[in-house]
């Protein structure tokens, strides 16, 4: 292709770039990176902190455990065990994911091949996603158990069927809203942060598939 050869000829002749002095380079390399990886690290740490705070306040002794203890004789199940040990379970899960995230993050090398680098960034980000999913499932399970316990503990006050339906509808809407907000948040984060990376990764995968 003669146009490309022409571009190649001139490309190699070009020397008119703005000269960056050694003093400027020295200043530059000590600045903070604003790369996608730095943002992922920053957002992931924030998410870890936020989720742990939510777990701490939402799943503490004043919350769900009180309701479980009301029905302790009937709730002698694995769910009851889970609720009673929620702090330990949540802590172990957090620790597991933080270690996994750290090892995946350490494997990101900018001098790897482009495909490998992208895979590793996506893998690191996915670790945080799995952590979020695990927490959402845990929060939802606890929410459902708490609801069932509230109804069971109020058996004698005889809720009408109508009241049950209204209560369940309201709780379902709250759950859906909660999931909606989480979904929207991820759409936004992905949209802003790694949409281009995902697009480029897909493009590279396509080359090997075509």
């Amino acid at each position: 292709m003669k146009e490309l050869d022409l571009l190649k000829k001139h490309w190699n002749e070009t020397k008119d770039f703005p000269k960056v002095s050694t003093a400027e380079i020295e200043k530059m390399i000590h600045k903070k990176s604003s790369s996608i990886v730095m943002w992922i690290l920053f957002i992931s740490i924030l998410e870890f902190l936020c989720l742990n705070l939510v777990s701490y306040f939402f799943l503490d002794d004043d919350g769900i455990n009180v309701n479980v203890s009301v029905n302790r004789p009937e709730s002698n199940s694995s769910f009851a065990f889970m609720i009673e040990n929620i702090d330990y379970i949540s802590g172990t899960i957090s620790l597991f994911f933080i270690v996994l995230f750290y090892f995946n993050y350490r494997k990101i090398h900018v001098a790897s091949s482009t495909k490998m680098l992208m895979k590793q960034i996506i893998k690191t980000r996915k670790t945080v996603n799995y952590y979020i999913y695990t927490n959402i499932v845990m929060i939802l399970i606890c929410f459902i158990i708490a609801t069932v316990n509230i109804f069971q503990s109020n058996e004698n006050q005889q809720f009408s069927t109508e009241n049950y339906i209204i209560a369940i509808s309201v709780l379902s809407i709250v759950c859906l809203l909660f999931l909606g907000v989480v979904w929207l948040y991820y759409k936004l984060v992905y949209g802003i942060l790694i949409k281009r990376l995902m697009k480029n990764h897909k493009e590279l995968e396509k080359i090997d598939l075509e």
Partner: protein
Amino acid sequence: MNKSLEQDFIQLLDKNQNLIHKVCRLYTSDDFSHKDLFQEISIQLWNAFPKFRGDSKFTTWAYRVALNTAISLYRKKDKSVNTIVFDNTIHKFEYSDYNYEEEEQLKLMYKAVHQLNDIEKALVFMYLEDKNYEEISETLGISEINARVKMNRIKSKLKKILNP
């Protein structure tokens, strides 16, 4: 990191800064983004420098890091393609023997390359830098055959852009 390592790095980067400028020129379309990407590439190179063992050439290592930063790490701030900026860019080319027709062809070619996606630009960059397909495949992490096939497709795509 120690001071002598830093000085070694600064000297190497200073000597090879045109390589980074070339990547910036391909992936950005205004001076602000050019400087921004140059800075990000410099930071990435410096952070990765302690792991650079010197068993490959500094330039080979540096253009890989520079391309990876432009493709995977850099958060693009410019979204629109500005024709005026391209015109300015093309005028920056040096001509040993000025030729109006060639200049026009170059302008169109430069615009066409900027219409390619990030991965295609990387292949064109390495082609312009005279890298062989083995190096291209190693840098991008694709097979050598597929790199060749893709390069041929890019040439066809460029032809189509030039002659719609």
